[in-house]
């Protein structure tokens, strides 16, 4: 499988990957690559900060469009801080659960709060 490296710093134009809109740009490029059957390597070289809002749009929503197996075999990250690896893992775990059973998750979360009462 041919690989393409996407340089996040260049796509965002900044060392700070903060906003969901910037994540959307990354998502669009990953999808373009996936459609053409390419493997995508995301390089976080020179990136100093990443929010979950950015990661949700850049990576999280891929789980809506592709299977976990497809993403696993076609996406890789390099040059990334270990703490940010944890953050991506948290986003991908959340995305898998979200797209698997959004309705069930929502109902459970509402019941939990109602079960706790108002407490004020």
């Amino acid at each position: 499988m041919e690989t393409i490296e996407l340089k996040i710093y260049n796509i965002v134009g900044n060392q700070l990957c903060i906003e969901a809109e910037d994540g959307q740009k990354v998502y669009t490029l990953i999808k373009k690559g996936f459609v053409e059957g390419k493997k995508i390597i995301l390089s976080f070289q020179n990136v100093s900060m990443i929010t979950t809002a950015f990661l949700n749009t850049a990576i999280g929503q891929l789980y809506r469009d592709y299977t976990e197996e497809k993403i696993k075999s076609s996406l890789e990250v390099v040059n990334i801080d270990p703490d940010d690896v944890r953050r991506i893992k948290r986003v991908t775990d959340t995305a898998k659960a979200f797209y698997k059973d959004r309705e069930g998750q929502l109902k459970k979360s509402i019941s939990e709060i109602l079960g706790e009462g108002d407490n004020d």
Partner: protein
Amino acid sequence: MATFTLTKIDNGYNSYKQIIELYQTHKDTFFDTIDIHLDLWFGANMAAVLGGVLDLFIDNMNTINLFIENSETKNVLMRNGFLSHYGYERVLDDRHSTIEYLKIKPTDGRFFNSYIIDEFINRSEMPEMTGALKKKIAESIYELFVNAKDHSGTKFIYTCGQVFPVKNKIEFTIADTGKGFQRVVNDALLTNFTAGQAIKWAIKDRNTTKNDITGGIGLAILHEFIKLNKGRLQIISGNGFYEFSEEGQKLHKFPYDFPGSYINVSIRTDDDSSYALREEIDSNDIF
């Protein structure tokens, strides 16, 4: 001409209550002059809360005059730039203890980035902190900014803070005058949560009001960070007051509604927790 006095404003429930009372008293005042006296003390970070409320009065074509009797309070609010929005001269922060009062459009993310770099990351006079802690603080503030930007529908976001070198702490507040947690959550979930319930729902991990894209992690991460740091998190929205600290979780009701949402964090800077040394995750095992 109307007059209102705010007395000894810190980060406690009663201080927020006074600012809500100010809002309730004058939210329907138009084309008037409102004289506001800040009596005894006014915590610098609370400028973000007051600034949002005063802008709503200004939207109603009112003239705002601020009177500050306490010279120390006046000096701090001049140094952090808050009073320069109300006819006072801007003075240099020669004590380097303020985090500038900023009123910013939600679309000005790039400007906010520079603000965080200047006020937190590259600032030499910050109390000594580990690099990991500094990064955690900046990340938390960014998460709050994007949260306000993406959910509140506010015209402006207001931020302000104060550094306390002797007490080893930073207070930072981010405020908006948008829809508030209760409306955002109830509109999306078709629930009838109280403001307090909406806040509690929103800070739980993986709870998001979005339907198509994942979310709900930012506030949960902030909550976890504050717990590890042994700091304090306050969320005020509508008539709900939520506080989390070492003492546990508190939820109170105000007699009236606040316009928008206010998040205040108190972070210990002498925290040497090894944020970076938790369990390593293989980057090949994240998808």
